[in-house]
Every structure is written in C-alpha cells, then in structure tokens.
C-alpha cells in the first residue's frame, strides 16, 4: 500500500515535470496550426489530460515528448475538421493579439493592425513553416532545439526558417509594414 502511494506520488511528480518541460512546446505547435492562443491552450491541456489517462491505464510511453506533440497535432487537425472551426463564434482579433495594458489606445490600434497583417501572412504559410516560426519566436528556441522538437535535422530547420522568414518579410514589405533586407 505504501509502495503504491509512493509510486503514485512519483508518477504525479514525473507528470508535473513533463508538463513544466513540454507544455509550452505543445502550445506552440497547436498555436502554429490555428494561430489562436486560447484554442492552443485548450489543445495543450487536453493533450496532457490524455497523457495522464494513458499513464493511469498503464500504457507504456517510451518518448513522452514525441507522444505529446503527436497527440497535439492530431487534436489540432481534428479541430480544423470540426464544425466549430468552420462556424466559430469568435473572430481572430477577439481571440488573439491582446496587447499590453500599458499601451496607449493609438499604439494598441497600430499594433492590432500590424498583428492582423502578420496573421494574414502567416495564414498563407504552411503549418510546418508556422511550427518553426512559433517555436523560434514564441519560445526563443535555437535551431538545434527546434530540430530536436520536430525530429528533423538542423540544416532543414535553418533552410525552412530562413525561407519562412523571407516569405514573411517579403509579404510584409509589400504591405508596407517593414523594410526588406
């Protein structure tokens, strides 16, 4: 009985450690799929709930990180096919891009406008490119870290990252948001 309780406590501690270590990565991949912060948060939490249930049922998960990212991608994909995604009740402006409270209204308006343009550009990119951008800019991951998360080599990450950045830069330049390099 005591060993069971200690094992339970240990399993819970491991789970919390997994959450602290990977929850932001899971969120970043979910966010890359839909560009909706709250939805990404829901998907992240559901993913970890499924991990918890899988562990309770005795399922052996050799690579929890890969498992989490795969489940999060599947959930994000399922949501894309669901009716809620097609007939959502919230506009992207409502769900995301919430600026800092210290900003002036004019600055906030400018930022919202810029973010709307960035969002439009990002929606034109592939989900794979958005995943790289999300990990790079939301979590400040380095190229090797992104390669590790996405299970691809660093050269591929570097190529896709620079290509995605260039696309974003070109499209924003067309819209007059920034200068091209």
């Amino acid at each position, binding site marked *: 009985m005591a060993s069971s*309780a200690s094992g*339970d406590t240990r399993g*819970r501690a491991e*789970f*919390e450690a997994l*959450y602290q270590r990977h*929850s*932001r990565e899971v*969120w970043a991949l979910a*966010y890359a799929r839909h*560009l909706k*912060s709250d939805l*990404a*948060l829901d998907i992240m*939490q559901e993913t*970890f*709930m499924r991990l*918890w249930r899988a562990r309770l049922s005795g399922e052996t998960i050799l690579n929890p990180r890969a498992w989490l990212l795969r489940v999060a991608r599947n959930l994000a994909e399922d949501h894309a096919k669901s009716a809620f995604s097609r007939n959502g009740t919230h506009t992207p402006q409502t769900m*995301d*891009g*919430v*600026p*800092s409270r210290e900003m002036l209204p004019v600055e906030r308006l400018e*930022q919202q406008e*810029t*973010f709307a343009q*960035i*969002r439009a550009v*990002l929606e034109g990119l592939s989900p794979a490119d958005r995943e790289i*951008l*999300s990990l*790079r*800019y*939301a*979590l400040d991951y380095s190229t090797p870290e992104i390669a590790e998360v996405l299970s691809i080599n660093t050269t591929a990450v570097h190529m896709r990252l620079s290509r995605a*950045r260039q696309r*974003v*830069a070109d499209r*924003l*330049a*067309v819209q*007059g*948001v*920034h*200068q*091209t*390099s």
Partner: protein
Amino acid sequence: MSRVKLPPDETQSIRPPDELLGDFFKSALPQAWPAVPVPGATGADRAQGTQPYTTLIKSRLAVAASVALLAAASFWTSGSFQRQERVGPRADPATWEAQRRRLHQDVSRLPRPSHPALPSRRIPRQPG
C-alpha cells in the same frame, strides 16, 4: 538593402521582421501559464481519485432501486383494475363471433310481424 516606398511618417516606425514576429508570437503566449490540468495533481487529496468509481456505484444502485420499485408497483396494482372486454371487430374473433350468433338468435326469436296481404300489383289487361 532595398527599402519599400512608404510615406515619410511611416518610414520612421519601420521595424525588422524578427522583431515584429517576436512581438506577434510572444503576445499570443499566455502570460499566466495554467496549472497542471489533472485532478489532484496540484497537491489535492487522493480521495478525488476515487470519486468517479463511487459515483458509478451510486448511480448503479439508484438504477437497481428504480427497477425494483417499478416491478413492485406493477405487482401490487395488477389486480386493482376492472377488466373490460373489448367489443367490436378488433376484439377477440371468437368472442365477437359468439356475440354475433347470440344477437342473431335473439332476433330470430322475436315474433314475426303479421301484415295483411297486399293487393296484387298486376295491372289488369285492358279489354280490346
């Protein structure tokens, strides 16, 4: 470096794409990160872990009690109502046939009406 043609007042606020993308993605990242989304995982008591099982047993007991009550009620009320035979073509065919025969016999026992002989309706021939 190629510069996009912009009005003078806007060229002063141009920003590199790295900065813009960083601002965009970081603004989407929730400031207050949610706690571990598992019941009891944040130090709550272990009793919560057994709650679903207890609830399941309670609901099954409630269903069993309801079924037993329904059976007892039907047993007690089974002889309380007077049964009325249905009459008509939808009733039991044998019952319906017996009633029809009885009615026929009753009708045949009734005295036959005695009417006076009616005059013949033959039209007499016209002479000639």
